[in-house]
C-alpha cells in the first residue's frame, strides 16, 4: 500500500510542478496575444482577454503605408537566408580543405581559428561602429551579411571539420582511383555524407542573423533597412507603451511561425548540438 501511495504523491507533485511551469511559460504568451488584440494604442485594462478584441493592429502592420513591419520581415528573411547559404558554402570549402589536405599553414590556420572562435564577436564591435561612422558607409545589408558570414567561419569550420574527419578517407581514395577529380569528390561524395552537419551549420547561420540585435543595430541606420529585432525594438522604445499593442501584434506574427518551424525541427537540432558539442 505504502509503495502505491508513495507513487501517487510523487506523481501528483510532479504534475503540480509541471502545472506551475506551464503557467509561467504560457502566461506571457497569452498576455501578448491579448495585448495584440486590445483596441487602442496602450494597455489600460488589466484582463488577459481583451473585452472588445480587434484585428486593427494586424491590419496596421500589414499596411505598408502605416508601418515598415513587412519590410523588416522581408529584410530579416533575406539577410538570414543569404547568410545561411553563403556561410554553408564558404564553411564547407574551408572545412573540407582542413579535413582532407595537408598544406602550408594548415596547422597555424587551425590554431588561429580556435583562438578566433574564443574571441567574443563583439570584440570587433567598436571597430565596426567606428569604421562605419567614419567612412559613413555600411548602412547596407551586404555589409551586415559579410560580417555575419565572416564571424561564423572559425567556430563552424571546427564543427564541420570534426564531422568530416569522421567520414572514412578510404572513400575519397577509392574515388580518386576511379579517376574522380578534387571538386567531384567534394561535391558528389563528401557533401552528401555530410548532410547532418550541413543542416546544423545552416540552422545556426539562419538563426544567428535572425535573432541578432547588436550588429544590426550598429550597422543599419535607415528604418527601411532595419531587421525585425532592430525595428521592433525601435517601435517599443520610441515612445514606450504608446505603440505597445502594435508591437504585440508584430511579435505574435514572428513568434508563431518560428515556433512551429522550430518545434518541427527540434529533435534534429538537439542531436546536432550534442553531437557537435561532444565531438567538438
Amino acid at each position, binding site marked *: 500500500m505504502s509503495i502505491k501511495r508513495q507513487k501517487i504523491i510523487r506523481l501528483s507533485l510532479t504534475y503540480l510542478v509541471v502545472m506551475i511551469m506551464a503557467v509561467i511559460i504560457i502566461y506571457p504568451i497569452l498576455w501578448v496575444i491579448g495585448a495584440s488584440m486590445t483596441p487602442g494604442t496602450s494597455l489600460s485594462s*488589466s484582463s488577459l482577454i481583451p473585452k472588445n478584441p480587434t484585428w486593427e493592429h494586424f491590419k496596421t502592420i500589414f499596411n505598408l503605408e502605416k508601418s515598415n513591419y513587412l519590410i523588416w520581415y522581408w529584410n530579416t528573411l533575406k539577410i538570414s537566408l543569404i547568410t545561411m547559404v553563403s556561410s554553408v558554402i564558404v564553411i564547407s570549402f574551408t572545412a573540407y580543405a582542413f579535413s582532407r589536405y595537408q598544406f602550408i599553414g594548415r596547422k597555424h590556420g587551425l590554431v588561429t581559428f580556435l583562438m578566433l572562435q574564443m574571441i*567574443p564577436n563583439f570584440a570587433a*564591435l567598436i571597430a565596426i561602429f567606428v569604421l562605419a561612422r567614419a567612412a559613413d558607409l555600411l548602412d547596407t545589408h551586404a555589409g551586415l551579411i559579410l560580417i555575419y558570414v565572416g564571424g561564423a567561419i572559425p567556430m563552424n569550420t571546427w564543427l564541420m571539420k570534426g564531422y568530416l574527419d569522421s567520414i572514412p578517407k578510404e572513400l575519397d581514395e577509392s574515388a580518386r582511383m576511379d579517376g574522380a577529380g578534387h571538386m567531384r569528390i567534394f561535391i558528389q561524395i563528401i557533401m552528401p555524407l555530410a548532410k547532418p552537419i550541413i543542416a546544423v551549420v545552416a540552422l545556426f547561420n539562419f538563426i544567428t542573423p535572425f535573432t541578432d540585435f547588436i550588429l544590426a543595430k550598429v550597422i543599419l541606420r535607415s528604418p527601411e533597412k532595419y531587421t525585425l529585432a532592430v525595428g521592433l*525594438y525601435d517601435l517599443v522604445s520610441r515612445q514606450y507603451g504608446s505603440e505597445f499593442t502594435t508591437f504585440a501584434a508584430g511579435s505574435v506574427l514572428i513568434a508563431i511561425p518560428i515556433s512551429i518551424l522550430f518545434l518541427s525541427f527540434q529533435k534534429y537540432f538537439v542531436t546536432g548540438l550534442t553531437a557537435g558539442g561532444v565531438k567538438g
Partner: protein
Amino acid sequence: MEKVKKTNHGKVAVTLSVIPGLGQIYNRQFLKGIVFLILTFSFIVVFKDILNIGYWGIVTLGEELPRDNSIFLLVYGIIAILLTIFGLGFFLFNLRDAYKNGKKRDLGIPLSTIKGQYHTLINEGFPYLMITPGFFLLIFVVILPIIFVLLLSFTNYNLYHQWPAKLVDWVGIENYLKLFTLDIWRNTFINVFSWTIIWTFGATTFQIALGVFLAVLINQKDLKGKAIIRTILILPWAVPAFVSILIFAGLFNESFGAINTTILHALGIGPIPWMTEAAWTRIALIFIQTWLGFPFIFAMVTGVLQAIPEELYEAATIDGANMWQKFRHITFPLILFATAPILITQYTFNFNNFNIIYLFNTGGPAISGQNAGGTDILISWIYNLTVTKQEYGMAAAITLILSTVVILVSLWQFRKTNAFKEEDIM
C-alpha cells in the same frame, strides 16, 4: 666527365630569387618564373602607395589637419602590415621553391615540365583555392577589426579627439591606467565587473539547475503525457529571444505591465519598481534569463537521459539504492559527462548576453557616481561608451580586458575536451 662536375644550382637559384621569379627562370621553369615576376611587380606597383602611407600613418597618426584623418591612417597602417606579412610569406615560399628545385638539379633529378607544373598546381593548389574565400573574409571582417580595437586601446580617440577638429595620438597604456586609478572609472569598472560575474553565475546556474531538474522529473517512467509536457516546456526556446525579452519588458513595465497591475495586485502586493530600482531590475533579469535558457538545457539533458541504459538503474535497485542515490551516482555524473562542454558555453554566453540587458531596460536604471547603468554588464557598458559617450579608446581597452577573460576561460575549457588533442595542437 659529366658526373664529376659539381653544380651549385640550389644556392645560385636562391640568390637570384631575391627578386622572385629569377631563380625559377634560372631553374628553367620559365612559366613559373614569369608568373612570379609578374606577381612581384604588380604587388609593388599596386600596393606601393598604401604601404607608404600606411607605415607613415600608423607611426604618426597624422600630422596636419584637416588633411589627415587619424582613424583612416590607422586602418591603412593595419592593411599595410597585413600586406607585408602576406608579401613576406610569398617571398619565403619563392625562396624555398627556388632552392628545392635547384637542389633537385644538383642531384640530377629531372624537374617537372610545364604540363607537370600545371598538374602540381591543380593538385597542390586545390586546398588553397578552397580556403581563399573564407580566408579573405576572415582577414577583413574579423582579424582587421580585432587588430584595430587592439591598437585603438592605446590611443586617446574620443569625443574630444576626432577628425576634423583634432588628431588622435598614441597614449601608451594611459587608458588602462585610467581604468584602475581614476575614481569614476575604477568604481564603475568594479561595479560593472562584479555585477557581470553575479549575473553570469546566477542566471546560468539557475537555468541549468531548472533544466536538469525538469528533465529528470519528466523522464519518470510512469508519467503520462510526456510529449505534450515536453512541447510546452520547450516553448520559450522556440520563440526568438529578442521577442520574448521585449514582451517581458512590457510585462514588467511599471505603468501598464501585467506583473504589477494584475499578478501582484491580485496577491495584494503593491507595485514594485522593476525598471527604476537596480536591485529589482536585476532580479527580473535573472528570472527572465532562467525562463529563456532552461528549455535548451532541458532538451539536451532529456536526450542524454534517454540514452542511459535501463540496466544501470535495475542493477542499482537490486543493490538497494534509493531514488536520490540513483540520481547522485548514475544520472548526474552521466549528464555532467555528456554535457559539460555545452554547459560551460552557457556561462560564456551569458557573460556576453548583450540582448537581454539592453532590450529589457537598456542597462538602466541610471546610477549616480558611475558612468554605467545599474544593470549594465561589461559588454553593454562597452556598447554605451562607444555609441553614446564616444569614449572609443576606453571602450577598446575594456574590450581587450573582457576578451582576455573570455579567452582564458575558453582555453581552460578546450584543454579539457579531446577534439584538439587529435590534432596535436594543445
